[in-house]
């Protein structure tokens, strides 16, 4: 009796792959365009932005077909939507703000950058009534872990300081590169300068503008 050990599923898959002719890599998972096509990056770009969903099925691009005016309407509408900026805004206020350590205010909440890369331009404003001299350094910060940690993107933080009245400061950062399929939050971080442990009456306002940028999208 001859005993033959059963082949593992992975081994079978390897054998099958070795036995079959080399499969051409697909472009954007379209079976009629392969990755070596010089226009594949353009097809990827369109598919990541959902400008094309496929032609007669979601696995066919029909690269040799002429474009009908009906289809063109869909392509242009979807392209226009992908290029239209979106916004995340937030405002906040309070009677006092303790600053034993840096405080994050005006958190925009989650902003999902789906399937294609974007850039963000963010501006934040803080107003406070300082009965006694105070000093804070203002930063634009972002978080990709729901606010657990924050990263400053401000190269030149704004110093807000003085006493005996209302103070107003603004800080901004343009063209922050955002990765595709990543969730971001934006906020203003107030770092207390030596001698400052709290602010009195305060308010803040932030506006984040997200726009398409060139770069690698996902999943294609």
């Amino acid at each position, binding site marked *: 009796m001859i005993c033959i050990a059963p082949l593992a599923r992975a081994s079978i898959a390897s054998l099958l792959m070795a036995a079959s002719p080399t499969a051409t890599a697909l472009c954007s998972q379209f079976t009629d365009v392969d990755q070596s096509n010089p226009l594949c990056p353009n097809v990827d770009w369109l598919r990541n932005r959902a400008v094309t969903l496929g032609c007669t099925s979601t696995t066919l691009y029909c690269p040799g077909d002429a474009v009908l005016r009906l289809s063109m309407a869909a392509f242009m509408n979807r392209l226009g939507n992908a290029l239209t900026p979106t916004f995340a805004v937030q405002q906040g206020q309070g009677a006092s703000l303790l600053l034993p350590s840096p405080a994050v205010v005006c958190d925009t909440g989650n902003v999902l950058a789906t399937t294609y890369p974007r850039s963000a331009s963010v501006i934040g404003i803080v107003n406070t009534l300082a009965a006694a001299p105070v000093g804070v350094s203002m930063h634009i910060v972002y978080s990709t872990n729901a606010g657990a940690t924050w990263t400053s993107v401000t190269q030149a933080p704004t110093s807000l300081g003085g006493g005996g009245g209302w103070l107003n400061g603004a800080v901004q950062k343009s063209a922050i590169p955002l990765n595709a399929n990543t969730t971001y939050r934006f906020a203003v971080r107030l770092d207390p300068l030596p001698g400052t442990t709290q602010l009195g009456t305060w308010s803040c*306002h932030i506006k984040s503008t997200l726009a398409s940028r060139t770069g690698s999208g996902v999943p294609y």
Partner: protein
Amino acid sequence: MRAARALRCLFFVVAIALALATPVEAALCAGFTDVDSTNPFCSNIEWLKNRGITIGCTSLTLYCPAAVVTRESMSIFLQRLGNAMTPTLRAGYNSGSSLDLDLLPVLCPTSLHTPPASPQTAHGVGYILGWTDAASTMDVSVTLVSRPNVSAPWDPASPVPGSWSANGNGTRKGAVVLLPPQTLLPGVPIQWGLRVGRSAGSLTTGDFVGWNCQLVIEIDNRVTTSSPFDEEE
């Protein structure tokens, strides 16, 4: 009994004849007679027509949905799409000497913007710097305002005003205010400015002896609309 049955039969025949004689008219898509509103691409065609990217093919009432896009047409479509997606800017810059804050002046007004038929969003930022002489100490408040035409009253457009305390020593101080995304109504003109005045509860009074301001508003395409062709159908 037979007469009643004959009458019912006649009524039935007449009803069918009338139905055949007056076919139900499908609603037009974006005013085009060759695309009806049930076409799954109708909302896309409305999007294009609202932005002036298509104005029809052989006539203003035909879209020619099954016609192929020539490279010549494509160049027109892409140019119009590019124009629709290009932001428009409205800005105001000014400076001056004495300024009576009790008049609630609106500074740095932008020129009037008349939105096209397509939907748009405005957003922006403005600042005012002002300084007072030794006789004037007060709290100053700045609000970004807008109005639908040059003779209408100004309305607050920014929910968070900016404030600062002018302490009468001539130091230049000021405030920045934001315009959060503001939905513009198609075809309705709009203008923006910065309104400045003494804060409520400010105990002392006075005027600026010098000031300057700047306001920049960016106007972008917006995704949806209801005018003139409802893209959300």
